[in-house]
C-alpha cells in the first residue's frame, strides 16, 4: 500500500500546487488595469474573424503518416540497443514490422495522401 501512498501524495501535491499558484497572485498582486492589459492577447496579434474555420484535411493525413514513423522509431530504439542479444529471430521480426509499416506508407503514397491538393 505504501507504494500507492507515494502516488497519492504526488496527486495531492499536483492538485494543490496549481491552485496555490492562482490564489497567491490574487492576494499579493498590484491591480492597475488598463485597456491594453485587459485585451485577450496582450502579447500577441489580435484575432481576425471567427475561430471556427475549416482546416485542410491534408494536415491530418501528414500527421497520421508522421505517427507511423514515430511508432517505428520507438520500436527500433530498444531493438537496436539489444540487437546483439536478440539474434536472428528479432532481426526477421523487425523486418516484418518495418515491412508492414512500409506497406502502409506505400498505400498512403499511391492513394495520394502525400500530394498537397
Amino acid at each position, binding site marked *: 500500500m505504501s507504494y*500507492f501512498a507515494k502516488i497519492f501524495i504526488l496527486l495531492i501535491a499536483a492538485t494543490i500546487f496549481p491552485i496555490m499558484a492562482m490564489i497567491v497572485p490574487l492576494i499579493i498582486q498590484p491591480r492597475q488595469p488598463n485597456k491594453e492589459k485587459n485585451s485577450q492577447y496582450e502579447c500577441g496579434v489580435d484575432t481576425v474573424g471567427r475561430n471556427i474555420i475549416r482546416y485542410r484535411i491534408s494536415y491530418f493525413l501528414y500527421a497520421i503518416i508522421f505517427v507511423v514513423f514515430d511508432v517505428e522509431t520507438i520500436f527500433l530504439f530498444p531493438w537496436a540497443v539489444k540487437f546483439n542479444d536478440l539474434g536472428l*529471430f528479432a532481426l526477421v521480426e523487425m523486418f516484418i514490422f518495418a515491412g508492414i509499416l512500409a*506497406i502502409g506508407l*506505400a*498505400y498512403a503514397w499511391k492513394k495520394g495522401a502525400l500530394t498537397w491538393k
Partner: protein
Amino acid sequence: MNLYVIYPEITVLVLALALIIIDLLLPSEETRRPLGYITILVLSILAISLFWQYHLTISAYFYQGLFYYDNYAIFFKQLFLLAVILTVLFSLQYIDTMKYSSEFYSMILFALTGMMILASANDFLTFFIGLELMTISFYALSGFGLTNKKSSEAAIKYLIIGSLSTAVTLYGISLIYGTAHSFDFAVVCKNPEFFSALGIAGMMMITAGIFFKMSIIPFHMWAPDTYEGAPVPVTGLLAMGSKAAAIAVFMRILFEAFFPAADYFMPVLAVFSAICMIGGNIAAMKQKNIKRMLAYSSIAQAGYMMVGICAASPQGLKGVLFYAFLYVLANTGAFAVVTVVALEKKGTDYEQFTALSQSAPVLAMVMSVSLLSMAGIPPTAGFAGKLYLFMAVVEHGYLWLAFVGFIMSMLSVYYYLKVVRVMYTGKSDGSTITISGAVRAAVLISMTATVVFGVWPQYLSMLTDFAAITFLR
C-alpha cells in the same frame, strides 16, 4: 515460441496485407471483385483446416500464456470465419458499389483478426489488444458509406461511445492489475487480494465494457443508430461477429479470471439477461426500419445467450455456443436479403419489403426461415438452441428466467412474422429482383444449415459439447 499456434491469425493478417498490395498494383479502373473471391477462398480453406486442430486433451499456449489455443477458441474462430465468409459472399455486389472496396475487405479481415485474438485471449493485455483491433476496424467500417450522412453519424456515435467503454475497460484492467499484480487470467483468479473493493470495482468495469460490445440493455444505446446507419454487411458483422467475440471473451474471463466470484455474478447476469430479453423484444415491435428491428432483436438474442452463461455448466456453455452458431446462420440469411433489397430499392423500411415474395421468392423464403429461426419456431435450428439454453438454466434453478425467455420468444414471433406478412401480402410493382450466384449460394447455405441443424441438432451439438466440456474442466 510455437508460432504454429497463431497460424489462423497470421494467415488472416497476411491475407489482409496482401489485398492492400494487390489493390495498389491493380489499375484503379479495374473491378475489385477478385479480391473478394480470394478472401472467400483463403478463409474457407482456413476454416476447414481448423477442424483438424480439435484435440481431446492438448491445449497450447503461445508466448508465456498470453494466448490460449483450446477447442473453445477453435470453435469460435471457425464461427467468426464462417460469419465473415458468408458476409463477404452475399455482399460482393454491395461492396462493388463502394468507393474503396478493397479497403473494405482489408478492414473486415482486420476486424476478423481482432475477433480471433479475443477468442484466444488468456491475458488482459491480449484481451485489450483484440478488443481494440476489432472495435477500431468496426469504427472505420461503419463509416464506409462515404456519401451517406447516416453512415457518418453511425460511425461517430460508435466511436464516441466505444472510446468511453474502452476507457472504462482499461481502467478496470488497471485496477485489477493493482490488486492482483498480474494480467494473466490464471494468476489473477488465485490472488486473494483480488477480492478487495478495488478488485471488485475492476471486475465491474471490465464487465461493463464487454456488455457494451454485447449491447446488453443499459449499455445498448449506440446499437440501433449504428446498426441503422452502417452499411448493411457491416451491420450483419456487428450483430454476429462483434457480439459473438464479446461473448466468447466474456465467458473466458468470467470462468477463468473471475472464477472464484462467478457464483456472485450469476444473479446479476440473470437480471441483465431478463432486462435484455424484455426490453429488446418490446422495443423491436414498434420499429419501422428492418435494420433497426434486427438491431433490437440482436439485443434480445444477446439476452438469450446470457441465459446460457447464467447456467454456469457445460450444458449452458454448450447452449451458448450452439445458439451463437445458429444465430450467425440466421443472421446471414436475414442480412443477405436486407443487403439485396437495400441495393435494389435504396432503403430498408418495411415498405421496401412489400411483396418481396413476388419479385424475389427465394429471398422471401430465406428471410422467413431466418426470422423464424431467430424466434425459435420448431423445424428451424433456433428451437433447438433455445431448448438447450433454457433446459440448462432450469437445471441450475433459474426457473423464472426460463419463463421470461419463453414468454418473450412468443412475443418476438409477432414482429418477426410482421416482416413475413409484409413480404407475402401487398401489391407487387411488377419488378423482379435478379439475384447473383454468390448471394444465392450464401442464402441457400444459411437456410439449409438452419433447417438441417434444426432437424438434426446432434451433429452441431457434438462439436459444441466438445468445445464446452474441455473449456469448463
